[in-house]
């Protein structure tokens, strides 16, 4: 299986000559693979080019957040990721030799997916590559290195180097998911700008059978690594990931030598611990981004567009959310169901998301690595107070762990006209809730996505003839809206796609009363909501979510 999945084949264009494909994705990391699978599922012919023919090495990205798992579910990879990954919801913070406190990242019940799983990046890539190969309209080419990119009015011209020579291929849109050093970005003469942090970290993947629970453990100034921080995470296959802060003066070449690494780990685990070193790396990091994520027909996603420090697991998670945001927009633009300006909203939504991630990441870094004596005093004061006082725990920052962005200021949102609670405001990603149908228990998150969904809440179970006709007409729009009827706890409606809010959590989380409706985009983000429905408002909101507000076309 592995051999065929990663085998290089001579691209037909070398002999047959130039042709155009709708979308080229550059880079077969988690972000590029998710984008390609999403496009493939929506029926867009997609070509993925990668300069290598291997999965990534070592653990790299390891923490995949709840929202990412929900996206992976929509792409058909969620169960495999969950099956292999280790689930965790709890974090513990230590100062010197004592535990200060612990926290739970998902204190609510009633969600299909946990706060986080830990999974080595290469495992996720493997699952995504296998999933991609089940899609007939997506092709993945290894050892196809993009060496030049140029844009013209109707498309993008891509020059590709292979072991069999060079070929040129055209596409309507190109998604650059080619990582922090992004050759596509360089080829177009563009920059990613920001701040380099003067600190070095050692990451070690260690194989051992250990008694640590499956939790995120973060130490400030531990006895085994004085004046620095240490982070411990469990991964699949009895692998443990340990991050040691080294300071700026550390010599990266020396520090990655086993004779330096082994004593550090032995000191941490104790003299009797048995372990083997699987992988080691020394890294520095930056917080930076491009000025714009869209440049004509080229769209940048993941590390190519923005980079953060690793604290908070905001790299891969935000990159996968980029792909989630972009794929449905490209599909509509390619089909002529939305103007090209819809793609501007990718930048308008994901750039603030990147800024949010960079802000969190920078603040975490400043807390973990105080830059002055007084910063250090405040840091230590906060930590010492945190052992006994809840207020100080809220100030401790060992990484604010990835949560999805709400696109509050998106041009695609229809602002509320009715009074609503803030949690599910337009721009927010749909939050999960348990539902029940004739076919058994399910989750809201499994019933929506990949198209526009209307969630209609009925307190009595009754749905009038007028409403039924309206839902039917919405389904026949050029860009259809599928209605999902949710009845209050203890009540059954018996028409169409109908679910009971079995624990009352939908009503609570969505501030829903009888007649409340939410319009969700194909990426499961809320774009409009109402207390009373009428067809014209829904059509108008959906057109707005496609950047097609001036559209006059009205289906009956």
């Amino acid at each position, binding site marked *: 299986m592995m051999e065929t999945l990663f085998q290089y084949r001579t691209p037909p264009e070398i002999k047959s000559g130039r042709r155009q494909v709708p979308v080229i994705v550059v880079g077969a990391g988690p972000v590029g693979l998710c984008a390609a699978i999403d496009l493939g599922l929506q029926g867009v012919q997609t070509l993925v080019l990668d300069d290598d023919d291997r999965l990534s090495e070592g653990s790299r990205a390891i923490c995949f957040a709840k929202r990412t798992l929900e996206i992976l579910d929509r792409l058909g990879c969620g169960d495999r990721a969950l099956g292999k990954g280790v689930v965790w919801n709890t974090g513990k913070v230590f100062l010197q030799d004592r535990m200060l406190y612990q926290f739970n990242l998902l204190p609510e019940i009633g969600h299909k997916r946990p706060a986080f799983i830990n999974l080595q990046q290469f495992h996720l890539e493997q699952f995504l590559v296998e999933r991609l190969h089940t899609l007939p309209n997506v092709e993945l080419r290894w050892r196809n290195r993009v060496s030049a990119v140029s844009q013209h009015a109707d498309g993008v011209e891509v020059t590709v180097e292979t072991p069999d020579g060079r070929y040129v291929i055209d596409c309507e849109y190109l998604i650059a998911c080619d990582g922090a050093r992004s050759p596509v970005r360089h080829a177009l003469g563009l920059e990613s700008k920001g701040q380099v942090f003067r600190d070095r970290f050692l990451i070690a993947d260690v194989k051992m059978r250990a008694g640590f629970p499956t939790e995120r453990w973060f130490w400030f100034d531990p006895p085994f690594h004085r004046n620095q921080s240490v982070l411990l995470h469990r991964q699949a296959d009895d692998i443990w990931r340990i991050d040691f802060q080294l300071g700026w003066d550390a010599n990266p070449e020396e520090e990655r030598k086993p004779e330096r690494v082994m004593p550090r780990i032995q000191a941490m685990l104790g003299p009797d611990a048995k372990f083997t070193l699987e992988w080691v790396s020394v890294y520095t990091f930056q917080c930076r981004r491009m000025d714009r994520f869209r440049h004509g027909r080229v769209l940048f996603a993941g590390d190519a567009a923005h980079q953060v420090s690793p604290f908070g697991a905001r790299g891969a998670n935000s990159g996968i959310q980029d792909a989630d945001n972009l794929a449905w927009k490209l599909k509509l633009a390619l089909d002529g169901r939305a103007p090209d300006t819809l793609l501007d909203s990718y930048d308008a939504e994901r750039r603030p998301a990147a800024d949010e991630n960079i802000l969190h990441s920078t603040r975490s870094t400043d807390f973990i690595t105080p830059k002055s*004596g007084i910063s250090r*005093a405040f840091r230590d004061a906060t930590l010492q107070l945190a052992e006994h006082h809840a207020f100080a725990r809220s100030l401790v920052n060992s990484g604010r762990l990835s949560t999805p962005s709400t696109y509050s200021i998106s041009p695609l949102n229809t602002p509320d006209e009715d009074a609503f609670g803030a949690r599910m405001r337009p721009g927010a990603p749909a939050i999960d809730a348990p539902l029940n149908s004739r076919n058994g228990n399910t989750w809201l998150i499994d019933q929506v996505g990949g198209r526009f969904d209307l969630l209609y809440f009925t307190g009595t179970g009754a749905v009038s003839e007028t409403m039924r006709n309206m839902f039917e007409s919405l389904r026949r729009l050029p860009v259809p809206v599928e209605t999902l009827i949710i009845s209050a706890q203890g009540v059954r409606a018996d028409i169409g796609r109908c679910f009971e809010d079995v624990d009352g959590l939908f009503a609570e989380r969505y501030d829903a009363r009888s007649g409340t409706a939410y319009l969700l985009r194909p990426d499961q983000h809320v774009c409009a909501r109402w207390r009373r429905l009428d067809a014209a408002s829904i059509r108008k909101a959906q057109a707005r979510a496609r950047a097609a507000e001036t559209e006059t076309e009205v289906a009956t």
Partner: protein
Amino acid sequence: MTIRLDPNIEAPDDFYQALIDMHRGLDEAQSQLVNAKLILLLANHIGNMQVLREALRLARDETTTWKQN
């Protein structure tokens, strides 16, 4: 809410003495930590971000613009 700058401490001399006494017998590093903890405790008690920002700004401005005659 804006920051109160009119006298608001019931017994100013008692408070001032208690503030100085808090540092008795501590070295410079300990005193710095104690001050930091005091600020954090009081900031949480106040809670209001507007008041806190005004206090932060005033504390800094009263220092950077203060000149010895």
